[in-house]
């Protein structure tokens, strides 16, 4: 029994180590923050040395990076994208707008606080966060993965009802497929 536990630890360690070093980011830019991503990816800051790189489709991606404000219309698409992603999946909220609405806190059409609608692993503060801050956020996510605390896909499944209530409060015409994960 003791032996099993230890071997599970080793398996977890290797698994987390591998996950940590290959974070595929979905190339889905919302708002103005997407302009920082090319700077982060290209030669000066070179995010690929941390294993961070782009992925073309939701099903190939690990990280959903919400770069900036989310209008209610975009939120619907983001939820659809998030639900298509395969576990393990992580969400990074990027910029003040995802944290508390930022300069759009009183807008009729942008949400305040992303974590009411999707489970967020890491928030990166700033308007806009510079590439150093973005990389720092990713390193924080890697620490969480290594510690085994980045399991928000599971959390989303367990609290689906709570998230659905909040989402349907905004998206009144809900015509989306239900996935059985």
């Amino acid at each position: 029994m003791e032996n099993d536990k230890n071997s599970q630890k080793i398996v977890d360690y290797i698994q987390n180590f591998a996950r940590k070093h290959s974070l595929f980011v979905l190339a889905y830019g919302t708002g103005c923050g997407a302009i920082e991503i090319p700077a982060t990816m290209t030669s000066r800051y070179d995010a690929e040395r941390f294993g961070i790189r782009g992925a073309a489709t939701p099903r190939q991606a690990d990280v959903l990076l919400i770069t900036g404000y989310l209008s209610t219309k975009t939120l619907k698409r983001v939820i659809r994208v998030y639900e298509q992603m395969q576990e393990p999946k992580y969400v990074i909220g990027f910029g003040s707008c995802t944290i508390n609405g930022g300069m759009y806190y009183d807008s009729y059409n942008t949400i305040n606080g992303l974590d009411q609608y999707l489970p967020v692993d890491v928030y990166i503060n700033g308007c806009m966060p510079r590439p150093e801050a973005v990389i720092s956020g990713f390193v924080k996510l890697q620490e969480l993965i290594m510690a085994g605390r980045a399991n928000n896909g599971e959390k989303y499944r367990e609290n689906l009802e709570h998230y659905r209530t909040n989402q349907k409060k905004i998206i009144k015409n809900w015509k989306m497929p239900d996935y059985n994960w």
Partner: protein
Amino acid sequence: MNDLVKENKLLDTVINSFKIEGKVIRDCRVEVYADKNTVSSILLFAKNQLGYIHLAHMTCVDWIDQGEYEMIYTIYSPVDKITLFVKTRIDRENPVMENIDTIWDQANTYEREMREMFGIEFPGLIGEHDFILEDWDQIPPMRKEFDTHKYAAETFFTRPGREDAKDVRDEINKRSGAKVPEFAKKYSRE
């Protein structure tokens, strides 16, 4: 330096042809105030006869006190290098305006946006009713009686710490003890 010759000439042409009011704002800026029924004839005249071939912008202003919407058509002539503003007022209770996307195709986009944001009807306008907003069940959001603060507070979740939304200028003055300039006092939230 510039005695506004071409601007005055344009103004005279337009106001004499249509018997309307207008003025020269400054060099290269001329505005005329028209009745809502003559707007399309003015635009057609300016486009076909005077060479104002470019619809630069088209917008709406909500004058809630007077109970009117003001429609502003901004047209430009690349030959004269003059921007001509054609302004008209329409009733706020029953806002109907002539559709001009037969003159300029790009007016269609502006008109669809105005239909969604102000609720102005353009008879004969082609296009889906949902343009930018989705599932919108309130009054059009750009109308002045729409309370954006209240709507946002009711619909979205405010994060604790944000609800007081202090005025930056007031806070800075309070901490540093600086005097508030006279012109800035009317913008204060306190």
